[in-house]
């Protein structure tokens, strides 16, 4: 069982799982980091991203790179309305945001049920090859996802460290009032952060839906994954989301392959609970 090819395959599977988990968690942690909002509607936005890609790539046959980026930009733009209507009442109010956004999640999901019905749909794959290296296999569509995850992480890092808006974002995250006194338009920064966060969430949702399946309820699992990854890595920390995603992805791959699904679930949950009890701000977060 513990032979080299199996270990190698478990490693490759871990990479592929980690990529999806990191993408799914990024938008969630950004909203918390900047606006102190626990986005319980995270899964709903991921799901909307999935439907957007379904129409863009599945129905209208727009070329894949444009479809993926375009559909996520569309969702992010349209969601700005929700930012005005819903989110802005909950900035910096963690408890209210949780329950309120739970309500938003219900509203979006069930509206989607009414519009699209509950049946699962599929989005055609972006690539259908299988890469085989040294006895290990990796489907090319998973390779694409790994590539996108790395690109998004790199792009975000560049944005936050090299651009003026990015710097303003970091300043607002540290202390919104002082940032305002320094002349930063915090209302605009919040909108920008919201836009970027939803863009990343919709993108993750689109890829998730394409890899697995699309339905109004598909967002439940990305939400749970986002929670776990972000608790592991630290709420509000982007490097934390990357670390948490990698930890979850690899542990799930190795534990499931060698010990089965039940062990993997119990261990992941157990570790996260223990972390919450002893170090609630995660591995890379800051105590409040």
């Amino acid at each position: 069982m513990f032979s080299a090819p199996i270990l190698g395959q478990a490693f490759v599977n871990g990479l592929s799982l980690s990529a999806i988990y990191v993408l799914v968690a990024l938008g969630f942690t950004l909203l918390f980091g900047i606006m102190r909002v626990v986005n319980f509607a995270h899964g709903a936005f991921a799901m909307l991203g999935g439907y957007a890609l379904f129409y863009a790539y599945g129905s209208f046959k727009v070329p894949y790179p444009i479809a993926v980026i375009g559909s996520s930009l569309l969702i992010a733009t349209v969601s700005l309305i929700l930012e005005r209507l819903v989110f802005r009442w909950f900035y910096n109010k963690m408890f209210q945001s949780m329950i309120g956004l739970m309500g938003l999640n219900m509203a979006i999901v069930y509206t989607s049920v009414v519009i699209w019905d509950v049946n699962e749909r599929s989005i055609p794959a972006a690539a259908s090859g299988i890469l085989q290296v040294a006895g290990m296999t990796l489907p090319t569509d998973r390779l694409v996802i790994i590539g996108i995850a790395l690109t998004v992480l790199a792009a975000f890092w560049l944005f936050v460290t090299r651009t003026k808006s990015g710097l303003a974002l970091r300043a607002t995250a540290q202390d919104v009032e002082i940032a305002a006194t320094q002349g930063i338009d915090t209302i605009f920064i919040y909108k920008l952060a919201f836009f970027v966060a939803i863009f990343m969430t919709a993108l993750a949702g689109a890829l998730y839906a394409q890899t697995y399946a699309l339905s109004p309820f598909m967002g439940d699992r990305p939400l749970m994954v986002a929670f776990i990854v972000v608790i592991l890595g630290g709420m509000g920390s982007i490097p934390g989301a990357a670390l948490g995603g990698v930890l979850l992805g690899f542990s799930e791959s190795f534990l499931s392959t060698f010990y089965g699904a039940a062990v993997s679930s119990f261990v992941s949950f157990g570790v996260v609970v223990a972390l919450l009890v002893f170090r609630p701000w995660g591995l890379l977060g800051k105590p409040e």
Partner: protein
Amino acid sequence: MPGAAAAPAARSGRLRESRMRARAWLGWTILAVALVAWPLFNDNRFILTMGTLVAFSAIGASSLNLIIRTGHVSLAHAAFMGVAAYACVLVQMRLGLSFAMGLVIGCLASGLLALILGPIMLRLTGKYFVLVTFLVGEIIRMVFVEWGSLTGGSNGIQGVPSIHPIFDSPIAFYYLALGAAAVCVGIALRILSSEIGRAIDSVREAERVAQCSGVPVIQLKVTIFVIACMLVGVQGALQAHFLKFVDPTAFNIDVSLNLVVMNVIGGMHHLVGPLLGSVFIVSLPELLRGYVELQRVIFGVILIVVMAALPAGMVGALAWARRIIAESFAAKKR
């Protein structure tokens, strides 16, 4: 002379207050009589089932309200309900004990688990507490699913024995559920309107200050948590006997979420809130069967509005409406 004018004003104020209280008492008595008497005039079993399920949810929602009043929202409440339900049913079916013993052991089981987990979880605040209860609830559900030899796994336990031949009729079971709900809500009411209730409020509003004035914060929170989990055990035990069936899906995150929604929509500041919430959340989908999705959308929107603007929920909205009406009448009189 000011003294002479003040006395009659004060007296009429007290008179008004006692008249209002008398009216409130009258209102509650009428409601109680109605709840007890209507099955005797109309034995529609469907509505009896609804009423029984509402009574069950009232127990769960009001016991959760106790925890919420201490400033913590638990997403594991249904899991504790499940612990009590399984314990109650298993001791009856495997050990041959009576229902009364089963009920007691069930509630002790959920209370004991709350006593073990409470001190650990309640140290966490706000969002972290919600997250940890979410995860603990899931872990408990997974235990129900995996420990097949004890719980029957996902297939659950069938053929739960009846409590007593008297309660086999739907009307009798409805009265049992109503009675149990009255007792549990009564206990919650008693706690909240006593000294402990005031301590709870102080802990929720300003924990550090409460601690400085000598309130044993963590002990208080754990005590209330344990009591609440024992009370929801009553719902678990009765529900298991009503459906004659126990399975893990009756104790999952959606059920816990529903209990939270009942509290938020109804209003968390008065015990009436969760009661009102449970009537709405349980009965509305049945009565308006064609529009279940739309109802869920509306509940979602109500949650947003309540959290953003109306923290006191429906009860608060009603009180606010009543106040507006009363004020406009008073203005007219003058």
